[in-house]
Every structure is written in C-alpha cells, then in structure tokens.
C-alpha cells in the first residue's frame, strides 16, 4: 500500500525504450506504468519459440546497434503517444543469446481506456520489429544458424512473432 501510494505521487516518467543484455522482468516493468488515472494496461511479449518456418530452433542471438535502436524506438513511442491517448508506454529489447521461452521484447502501455492501450501496444511492436537496427540469428537443431530476414526468411516473407 505504501509502495502503491508512492508510485502514484511521483511525476509521470518519460516514455522509455531500453536495449539490454539482462533478462527482462515484465512484472517490475509493468509496475512502472501504474498511474491512478489508468484503467487499462496492455502488455506484449515476444518469446523465443522452438520452431520457425518449419525449422527446429534451439536458441536465438540478438544483436542491436544500441544508440540508434534507442533513438528510433523512442521515436516510435512518441508516435504512439501522438496518435493514441496514452498515460505511459515503455519497451525493452533483449540482446545476446536467448533460450526457448525467454522474453526477447516487452512492450507495455497504460491508458484510461482499453482501446487505446491495445492499439498503441500493437502499433509499437509492429514498428519496432521493422524499424529498429536489431538483428537475430537463429541456431537450429541441425547445427546450422541463420540471420533472420537475410537468408531463409526473405524467401518466405515470414517473421517470428
């Protein structure tokens, strides 16, 4: 209760996009979006799955060019804020080697009403996936590996999530 009141009293924090080699903690992230005017929260997580385009995937390796990923990501958050009526919007994208089930990307949005939360969350993840300088390499069960969108996937127009 004390913690909750503290959160409500502080000023709104700026929308943030972070790129990090550390495990994503969605629960602590969503708490940062608490706001007494918020009636709705929508969260999206991209998880590493064991199958992509028919290939058995063992793990994924993410590389980001962090300065521009952050700059472009915060542009995306600003666009979402300009288009939808939001209270907070945050995003974190992982880098490094990820295992099946790991959270690769988290997007969270709070707003007064649910429509805006859903719309903005979807807008953000759709834009992040195609605009941020982030790349992923899939490591397959057969020992091969491949950069997604560069090799196999461009032939089929597939994306991971």
């Amino acid at each position, binding site marked *: 209760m004390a913690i909750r009141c503290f959160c409500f009293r502080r000023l709104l924090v700026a929308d943030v996009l972070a790129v990090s080699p550390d495990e994503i903690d969605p629960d602590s992230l969503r708490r940062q979006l608490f706001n007494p005017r918020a009636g709705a929260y929508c969260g999206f997580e*991209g998880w590493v799955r064991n199958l992509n385009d028919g290939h058995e995937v063992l793990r994924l390796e*993410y*590389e*980001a*060019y962090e*300065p*521009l*990923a952050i*700059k*472009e990501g915060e542009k995306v958050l600003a666009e979402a804020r300009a288009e939808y009526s939001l209270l907070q919007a945050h995003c974190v*994208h992982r880098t490094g080697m990820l295992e099946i089930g790991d959270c*690769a*990307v988290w997007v969270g949005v709070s707003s007064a009403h649910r429509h805006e939360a859903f719309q903005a969350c979807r807008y953000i*993840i759709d834009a*992040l*996936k*195609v*605009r*941020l*300088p*982030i*790349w*992923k*390499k899939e490591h397959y069960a057969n020992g091969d590996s491949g*950069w*997604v*969108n*560069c*090799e196999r*996937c*461009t032939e089929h127009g597939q*994306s*991971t*999530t």
Partner: protein
Amino acid sequence: MKTIRVRYFAMFRENAGIDEETLTIEVSTATDVFEATRGRHGSSEPVGHCKVAINDEMSDWQADISDGDTVLLFPPVAGG
C-alpha cells in the same frame, strides 16, 4: 574522392570479417557506398531491404555522402 568510415553490422560484419574500415572512394549517395562495398558485406539482398544510417542518424539510400561521414550499413532488421 571522399574519405568515409564504413561500419558493418550483423551478417554484413560477419561477411566482411571486420567491424569497420576507412575508405577513400568516389561516391555521392549512400547507395553508392553500399554498391562499392558489396565485396565486403556480400549482401544478397537488394539495397531496398537494407537500412542505412549516416553519422548515427537513420537515413535513406538517396542521401548525399560528405567527406568525413560515417556510414552504417544495416542488413534487413529482425527485432522482436
């Protein structure tokens, strides 16, 4: 002739075997840089599937290159 720094990322870096290099070449646009370094980055992708940044700003392939610029060559992105 312009002296520029070219940086390679992800598959382009792996293909080039280097992170970056300084080149003195005859180029006017970012597309020219992409084509001039094809032997390095080895892209099988058309330039339109790739992205470019100039001096840490996202740019486009028609952008002019100036002497001293740093050109970042990004293969097709795949975040999320």
